[in-house]
């Protein structure tokens, strides 16, 4: 076991260093750093100074009347990007104070960066909602209906992540604290493909497949399966997953820097006004795809042989094994599927919000909330729980400040664990 781990760690380390090191000169014509600054109300912010330095270069640009800026760079690589906050107009501040000075990995020809602005005094402390323009919109919208739509969208997104979490828990008993990172890794895999030139519509499915194979099937094969063979206990495994989450998160931070990114396409879409609500086309399409994916997954679990085997293993691994089911194969499939679903969720989140190194961590507790609410280990439970949590989180913004949205999900989870620990659909025995 030790030898394998050393080899695997060595491979990871080499890959890591190679990845960072290879951010050397890739093209002869050079790259550029571009972006747009918009105030919270949607108007462009001009005359803000952005400075870039690194790789022997230093330069700056000021945002134009349309809020855009461009800094031409000699080559791809890692650069230090500073926003001159004194040049921000009054009443406007950086949403993330760390955006003031950050390290950006420039890979694409035109590397886009996001600079989020908020009205002075506000900030984001947690994972927020989906593509609906709830806060910015005013006038003839119905806030409650808008929140419900947003909540459903968020819920569908969470369901993708929660399904995988639930399946993994059901079949292996592992409370996977690194599940959020599966979303992050999926989103970033798509970023890499996207910035290499693939349109996100093509990059996304490819990224999902890569993620499923590498971070799902691969993770099980290299880490969890050997641990199961060593009969590592579940609490120990849970702590291992915590260590893994930390590792993965900071590897992503190391490779990609701390500033949030967007995909090159569909970044700032206008919402369609349908009746009293506003939804962006991408939100509708993503939700539709997600619903189809979830439906297919559930059907697969109900009808197919492996699906039924999965449910059997979830229920009683020893018995399943005794009836001839290849438990390890089922677990392998579950990890692959779970990682794939999570990758999709990550891309979904990246398209409706942004892609950042801690996006998975921010949403992990919400995933746990959904799974415990619905019932740990039950398939439908994950979906039901996710939808309820999504709706709840959005609707609570009517009473609590938006930046505290996640609080609603956490509160719900704590209450459920106290009142009905097996969740809505779970069975009594599993919990205390």
């Amino acid at each position: 076991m030790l030898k394998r781990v050393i080899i695997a760690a060595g491979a990871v380390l080499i890959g890591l260093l190679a990845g960072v090191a290879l951010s050397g000169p890739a093209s002869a014509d050079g790259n550029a750093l571009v972006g747009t600054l918009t105030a919270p109300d949607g108007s462009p912010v001009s005359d803000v100074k952005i400075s870039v330095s690194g790789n022997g270069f230093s330069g700056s640009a000021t945002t134009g009347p349309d809020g855009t800026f461009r800094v031409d760079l000699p080559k791809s690589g890692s650069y230090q990007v500073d926003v001159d906050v004194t040049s921000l107009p009054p009443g406007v501040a950086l949403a993330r104070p760390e955006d003031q000075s950050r390290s950006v990995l420039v890979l694409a020809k035109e590397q886009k960066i996001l600079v989020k602005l908020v009205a002075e005094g506000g900030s984001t402390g947690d994972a927020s909602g989906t593509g609906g323009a709830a806060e910015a919109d005013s006038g003839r919208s119905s806030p409650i209906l808008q929140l419900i739509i947003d909540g459903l969208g968020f819920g569908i997104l969470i369901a993708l992540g929660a399904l995988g979490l639930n399946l993994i828990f059901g079949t292996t008993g592992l409370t996977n604290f690194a599940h959020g990172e599966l979303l992050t890794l999926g989103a970033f895999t798509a970023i890499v493909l996207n910035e290499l030139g693939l349109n996100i519509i093509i990059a996304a499915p490819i990224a999902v497949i890569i993620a499923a194979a590498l971070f799902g099937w691969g993770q099980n094969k290299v880490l969890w399966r050997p641990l199961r063979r060593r009969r590592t206990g579940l609490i120990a495994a849970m702590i291992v997953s915590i260590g893994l989450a930390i590792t993965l998160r900071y590897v992503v931070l190391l490779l990609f820097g701390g500033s949030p990114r967007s995909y090159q396409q569909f970044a700032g879409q206008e919402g369609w006004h349908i009746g009293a609500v506003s939804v962006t086309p991408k939100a509708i399409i993503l939700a539709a795809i997600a619903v189809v994916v979830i439906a297919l997954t559930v059907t697969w679990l109900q009808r197919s042989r492996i699906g039924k085997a999965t449910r059997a293993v979830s229920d009683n691994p020893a018995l399943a094994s005794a009836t001839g089911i290849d438990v390890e194969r089922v677990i392998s499939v579950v990890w692959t599927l779970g990682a794939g679903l999570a990758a999709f969720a990550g891309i979904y989140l990246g398209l409706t919000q942004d892609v950042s190194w801690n996006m998975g961590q921010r949403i992990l507790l919400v995933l746990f909330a959904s799974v415990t609410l619905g019932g740990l280990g039950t398939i439908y439970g994950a979906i039901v729980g996710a939808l309820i949590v999504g709706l709840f989180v959005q609707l609570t913004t009517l009473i609590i400040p938006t930046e505290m949205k996640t609080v609603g999900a956490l509160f719900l989870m704590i209450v459920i664990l106290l009142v009905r620990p097996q969740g809505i659909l779970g069975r009594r025995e599993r919990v205390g």
Partner: protein
Amino acid sequence: MDVGFVITQSLTQAIGVIAIIYCLAAVGLNVQFGYAGLLNFGQVAFAAVGAYMVGVLVATPWLKGDPGYPLWLAVILAIAGAVVLALILGIPTLRLRADYLAIVTIATSELLRLVVRSIAFRDVLGGANGINGKIGDGFHEYNPFPANFDVPFFTFNRQDLWVVVVGWSLVALFSVLVWLLVRSPWGRVIKGIREDETAVVSLGKNVFVYKMQALVIGGVIGAFAGIVWAVAKQSVQPDSFVPDVTFFTYTILLLGGAARIFGPIVGAVIFWFLLAGVGETLGQMIQAGWIDFLRPTDVGPIRFIIVGLGLMMLMIFRPQGIFGDKRELALDAR
């Protein structure tokens, strides 16, 4: 590359303020997890209670005006606050299974952090900026050290020196208290509960009360970690009290050896020595140009990666840590 500087930094941080803070948190966690087997993943919340209680009472004009309440009063109330938090946390959750307890305690610590951070309470708790300034004045007043401490291998300014001396004394005090408890019949009951609480129940012990006591004691010691934090750094911010702090504390505890009196101490010292050492070495190597594909800002993430990998390795290969006895493991690790 300045090897001397690296060594000095490493040694200084190994016994410095941050090591003390994490050591206290780990001593508390040792009672809860090491000896009682409670998977408390919200230890950082206790530190936050300690820090904020001190911060609010001493440095916020909201309650009493300027200057605030004396430090000793704030410390007493911080202890009370920790007890209350332990009760609120424990009464509903102590009957839950281990992994559920872990999730609930993390959720609670995050919930508290977000609430404390929110704009709604900004006047009292400082919102995202927290409370800054003058918190430790009542403590530093008594600093007997005349000057900074600058010897080969260690360097502390005089405030930090005072904190370090008092801090390690606190560590020693709490360690002795824990030792007394653990070798007593009370400690025996706790260890029994850790292994199989049904058996202990069948012998007539009120297991719930024991678990609660362990939670409270560990929480109060954890609150002291927060108190030292507030006093030493003269500032408390909500974003400092994130779950990663609890994860570091677990790493430290497991490294030194859970359910061992010296575990938290050895763990904290070695942990920060390594982290500071690697961080400094790497930083210097990058600056000297020896590693040209890394930037100085990469050192931070690399330190975290080391912690993450370290935690994984510990759990997989040596869950009993340095001092622990494999036969006595609280974990179901093998």
